[in-house]
């Protein structure tokens, strides 16, 4: 059965997504349990698949018996296995959060599972065009989810997200067209060989690279292509921003790496060094600009959103450097960031429910008003800054080691400075939570709401538990770096070298 796992990780959430709608006709509120069962199964599948991959190398699957390159191939190697597990685990975690936080509509859970299916598809596919289809499935689900926010501005944010995201995906599709014109194939493994024959420095290939990477950079939200992201994160429902912030950009970044290593291959960078320099520059600019924009925000969720711009600069820089250590670092940071940013968005949701605070100034004295959540936020913040031994540090360590090995010194400086840049915006939040007196006489509700007490909106233990779990994971995940390193080492050796 395990040999079918690559297709099952996509099919399972799709089937699961259909059930809430169907059962919704007969009974109420079945969405959550169905989604929970589906995602539990998904997690088991993903973990089993990852174990198989780690033990026995990459798994490829050809649905319908149409042999690649004619059929569509699904390939799961170490890199994708890690991301698959991440998708399943995080979506399961966020589901625990959604139980109380809602939205409770059955159609919400259908879209939720569709998003998981799209993300898993993006991760498992071995075909450039298929990647586009899953990219758009992911996009469609994400636009719908963002639009489910309570405020009307959510619809505006979703539309903005849709237009920018579609342009990004279209650019990617155009690039895929150039690849097809240059080589006549769309299968990733096939492309790696035929691209080398077509010549890496041919105009067609270069254009294809620019368009595809550019298109994915929109989805990753690198500066200056990030404009959709802060609105989408800040205006969406808390559950949605947690899920989207944790996974969507993450998987897009994975797809970018997949293109770099499996399609264009390291040989491309050797042949066209300017492409690498350009990508590194964009990543470095993203790190700095994202942080500076984050410092300027007064809304906490927007600050977190801009922080993502900066952190993904770090990830992409790691992938673009391309040495083994840097890839390990980028992957660790990808996983770590998903956990940390997801946890932070979940926490801001709890804070807003409990105290109504959205802006930085309103977070004053949170340490006493909601001690557990505040402590979770504090741990996540410092993990994000890169205080060892948390996962934020481990990822950065590997990326910096990789950058040093590659001799990209100016990048090393930016990477190191990113610690201080991150500190610049997160320290303000931390200080506000613990060392500023809460607004007392001026506001009407001066009485502090104790943790677990009845606040403005119900906050379940499960929601707080998600934040605490994220905080613990952020600290503990750093210890998995050797495992990730082993997986990447194994995977990198299978990357095509023309």
């Amino acid at each position: 059965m395990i040999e079918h796992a690559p297709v099952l990780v996509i099919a399972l959430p799709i089937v699961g997504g259909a059930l809430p709608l169907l059962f919704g006709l007969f009974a109420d509120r079945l969405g959550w349990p169905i989604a929970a069962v589906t995602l539990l199964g998904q997690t088991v599948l993903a973990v089993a698949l990852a174990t198989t991959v780690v033990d026995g190398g990459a798994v490829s699957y050809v649905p319908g018996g149409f042999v690649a390159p004619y059929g569509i191939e699904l390939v799961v190697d170490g890199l994708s296995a890690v991301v698959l597990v991440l998708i399943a685990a995080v979506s399961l975690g966020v589901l625990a959060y959604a139980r109380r936080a809602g939205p409770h509509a059955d159609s919400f859970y259908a879209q939720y599972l569709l998003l998981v299916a799209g993300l898993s598809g993006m991760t498992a596919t071995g075909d450039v065009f298929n990647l586009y289809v899953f990219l758009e499935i992911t996009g469609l689900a994400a636009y719908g989810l963002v639009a489910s926010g309570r405020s009307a501005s959510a619809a505006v944010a979703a539309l903005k997200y849709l237009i920018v995201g579609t342009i990004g995906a279209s650019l990617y599709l155009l690039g895929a067209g150039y690849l097809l014109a240059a080589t006549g194939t769309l299968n990733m493994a096939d492309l790696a060989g035929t691209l080398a024959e077509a010549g890496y420095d041919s105009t067609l290939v270069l254009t294809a690279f620019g368009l595809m990477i550019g298109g994915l950079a929109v989805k990753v939200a690198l500066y200056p292509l990030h404009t959709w992201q802060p609105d989408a994160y800040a205006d969406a429902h808390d559950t949605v921003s947690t899920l989207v912030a944790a996974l969507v950009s993450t998987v897009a970044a994975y797809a970018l790496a997949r293109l770099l290593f499996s399609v264009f291959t390291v040989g491309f960078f050797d042949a066209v060094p300017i492409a690498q320099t350009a990508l590194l520059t964009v990543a470095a600019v993203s790190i700095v600009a994202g942080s500076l924009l984050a410092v300027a925000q007064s809304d906490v969720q927007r600050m977190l959103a801009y922080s993502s711009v900066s952190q993904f600069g770090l990830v992409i820089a790691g992938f673009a450097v391309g040495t083994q250590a840097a890839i390990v670092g980028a992957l660790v940071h990808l996983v770590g960031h998903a956990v940390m940013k997801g946890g932070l968005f979940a926490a801001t949701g709890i804070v807003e429910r409990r105290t109504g605070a959205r802006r930085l100034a309103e977070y004053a004295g949170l340490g006493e008003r909601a001690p557990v959540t505040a402590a979770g936020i504090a741990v996540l913040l410092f993990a994000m800054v890169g205080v060892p031994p948390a996962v934020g540090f481990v990822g950065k360590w590997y990326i910096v080691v990789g950058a040093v090995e590659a001799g990209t010194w100016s990048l090393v400086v930016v990477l190191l400075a990113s610690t201080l840049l991150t500190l610049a915006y997160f320290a303000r939040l931390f200080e506000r939570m613990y060392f500023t007196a809460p607004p007392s006489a001026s506001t009407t509700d001066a009485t502090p709401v104790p943790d677990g007490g009845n606040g403005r909106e119900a906050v379940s233990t499960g929601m707080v538990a998600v934040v605490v779990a994220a905080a613990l994971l952020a600290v503990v995940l750093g210890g998995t770096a050797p495992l990730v390193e082993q997986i990447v080492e194994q995977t990198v050796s299978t990357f095509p070298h023309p």
Partner: protein
Amino acid sequence: MIDPSLRPVLAILASLLAIPLIFATSSRRTLRESVTIAAALTKFGLIASLVPSVVWGGETYEYALFTLASGIELALEVDALGLLFGLLASLLWIVTSFYSIGYMRGLDEHAQTRYFASFAASLAAAVGVAFAANLLTLFVFYELLTVATYPLVTHDETDEARAAGRKYLTYTFGGGIAVLAGTVLLFWATGTTAFTPGGIAELATTDPAIARAIFALLVTGFGVKAALMPMHSWLPDAMVAPTPVSGLLHAVAVVKSGVFGLARVILDVFGPETVESLGVGLSLAVVATATLLIASIIALGRDNLKRRLAYSTISQLSYIVLGLALLKESALIGGLLHIPAHAFMKLTLFFCAGAIHVETHTDDISDMAGIGRRMPLTMAAFAVASAGMAGIPLLAGFVSKWYIVIGAIEGGGWFFAGALLLSGVLNIGYFWPVVYQAYFESPDDHDEKPLVRGIFGGRTAVETDGGEPVGAADGAETGDHDHTDDEPEPYETDHLGKYNEDHDHHGGPPEGGWTAAGWRGGESTWFMLGPILAAATGAVVLGIVPNTAVFLEIVTTVVDNLGVMV
């Protein structure tokens, strides 16, 4: 008997596990304080039990926790150098814990639970720094120490405290980045970061330019916490923290972790020989010399007692750095011995400053004329410790400085020897007025100004209301205040606002002059006097019988382990 190699782990856990207990007992003050004391005693016991086998038996114990990154384990190792720092920090934690109790009770501080918890966390990190087996592990605990001490610096929750906290984080994380960069480069160049007595062999053969870059990065990074100029300015600002924090952390744990890092870099990463051949020791020595002179001169012009002590700390830390940078055997012994010596003396001085603050709310030296009548024991301890600082024989400071000066002369560095002696004179210059005023002047006839107004850097005007916000805003004696509420809720009355009613009255002698207190402890509580006297006694013991006190022996072992000397 617990396996010796497990003991460093347990020593860290001792204070780490105390944190949840401290939170759990937050509503019961006495119980919470006993938890702290118990943790401190356990920690010291565990570390002290390692002394015989490590120092006399020549053993080292290693314990690998888990692999952090490729080829690098998060590992603990107990060697003589680590033991020096670990023993010192844990011993003084006991003393400081008692003092903290007295201090926090005396001032009825808010958020005491957070205070004690952060304190325990800081100590866990400090001992981690001491027992780190490689540079990366050291870095991990070094950064954790920063995080753990941040709440202590910002404890007062005033604007000034927050500003100081921000500055502290910026400076130390900035330094952390330099350390990280240096560590990455080191790992890239040699493939290891493990501490090796006498230096990592591969470094000697590395491209000198890269080796120098690594050295510069590491020294800069650790230099921030060691308060080398020009990276010192966080330290005086951090004096807004409660005095026990300034005492233990900003005279012992935090700043010494920087110095300790430097020692590790010079002795166990590069090794004296490589440092010598790279020619980087001299530049470090020059920076240290400049720091110790300039800081002493600035100290002359500081009227706030804690700020003066802060600059004194900066100056004294540079003694240690200078001792390390000179690379001579005696200088190394002196430098390392100055770590405990300075710790005992400076702790005494800070405790005295704190006691004065708690009892009389006086922070400025110009207000302290005749205070010897009010606090005779405290000021006596203060006098002893300052004499030690200046290097008067029979006190701790003398022994260490003696070794450093010998080392300086051995190395032909008359310049450094001269600077050390000059600094000794300056030490007397800024400590003597305090002692003199306290005993031989009365509030009416004393000279209001400090010896020299700030002629170097810093603020030109002497801040009469000082850097310590509690004392600054508040001013009258303890009795004036309503101290019935145990822990004021910050959102009800912020810390500053609580005392705002008598804003214009500064600290200093009450209207009718200082009341005399006897020599039998009437001046304060024994919770505070005890630690003061204990620390002062330590300083004396180190000075009179350095060979009996274990520290000199540890230091000699460290230097012997280095093998071949330059």
